[in-house]
């Protein structure tokens, strides 16, 4: 991860965030999930070169990548206090941004939450539970997940359609 950060390899960074979410679907550890969100956000930030033109971009990026390093170290050491300290730092740092950069970063974070939620839902955790874990609404998750192929997985078809339609007809029988 650290070398991907240095090389600004957004593909590798994105893959890593997906791996983290993969494991987090089981443990549902909010710290791990938050780390996946900020790593995925970073991959999106790096991917879109034009945002480097924003005022204060350079200093923000430096602090952001340092913070990810600290978060990973804290997770490795299972140091909850240190982890929270860096989460608070990056949250405050984003809040202290101004202008377009602030709007952009907040938007990237929100979209990253929804993206990661969709992955967890895809893994079999319910929509409400997933939305709660990521701190988003079911509205956002439903809208995003609907555009993925989650509904097309064969194992998800649990009743022949004709049987379900018959059930619906019975429900509305007079």
């Amino acid at each position, binding site marked *: 991860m650290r070398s991907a950060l240095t090389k600004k390899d957004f593909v590798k960074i994105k893959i890593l965030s997906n791996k983290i979410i*993969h494991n987090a*679907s*089981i*443990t*549902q550890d909010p710290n791990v999930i938050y780390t996946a969100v900020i790593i995925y956000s970073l991959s999106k930030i790096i991917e879109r070169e034009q945002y480097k033109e924003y005022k204060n971009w350079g200093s923000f990026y430096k602090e952001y990548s340092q913070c990810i390093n600290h978060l990973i170290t804290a997770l490795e050491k299972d140091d909850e206090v240190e982890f929270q300290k860096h989460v608070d730092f990056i949250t405050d740092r984003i809040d202290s941004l101004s202008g377009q950069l602030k709007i952009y970063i907040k938007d990237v974070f929100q979209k990253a939450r929804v993206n990661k939620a969709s992955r967890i*839902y*895809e*893994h*079999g*955790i*319910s*929509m*409400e*539970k997933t939305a*709660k874990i990521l701190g988003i*609404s*079911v*509205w956002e*998750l*439903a*809208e995003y*997940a*609907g*555009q993925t192929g*989650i*509904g*097309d*997985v*064969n*194992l*998800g*078809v*649990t*009743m022949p*359609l004709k049987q*379900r*339609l018959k*059930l*619906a*007809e019975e*429900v*509305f029988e*007079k």
Partner: protein
Amino acid sequence: MKHLIFDSGPLINFSMNNLLHILIKLKKEFKGDFLITKEVKQEIIDRPLTIKKYELSGIRLKELFDRGIIKHANLSKKQVDELRERREKIMQTANNLFKTNRGYIHLIDKGESAALALSQMTEYSPLVIDERTARMLCENPENLRKLMEKKLHTSITSNKNEYDLFKNFKVIRSTELIYIAHKRGMIEIKDPRAYNAMLYGLKFKGCSISEDEIREMSRL
């Protein structure tokens, strides 16, 4: 009195697709109550009223709630306590059903559990659920275990004795409601493509239905 119990997903879906007028017609046809739990109300009305993007949809649903098209079950204090107990039992059971080497997987939350509990309390009234997990849990928990095992690349054991708790629930989706509306001539738009477009609209806003199922529904 008949009851149809709604999870949050189908109502969100109908609202986002501008199909609530069809829900009103379906309610008239149903001759019973469309029920929601307090957890669902919070998700479909209270929450979107705080998010600009979804505020209008939330207002539309609030109007339906105010008009009694969708309503809370009329429960006594004792029944409310019973509902809470059943909700906790369902949630506990579901969340201790599948185990990996890193512990149990928490599958569902209070809202879904409460909808199931309310169905159970009303002699297994049918449920409208769009999301995949709760439906699979009721209809084929073994498929859910296999799906999770495949997606998570890890061995999952299950407490199969507890599957029975979920076997009596009857689940339909928002798409089946549109099927009923189509069959009974409730769709006002004259364009023959409207029915099919509605099915896709619902799929793209979170109803867990496959392309094959939609194609089959379109032919019927």
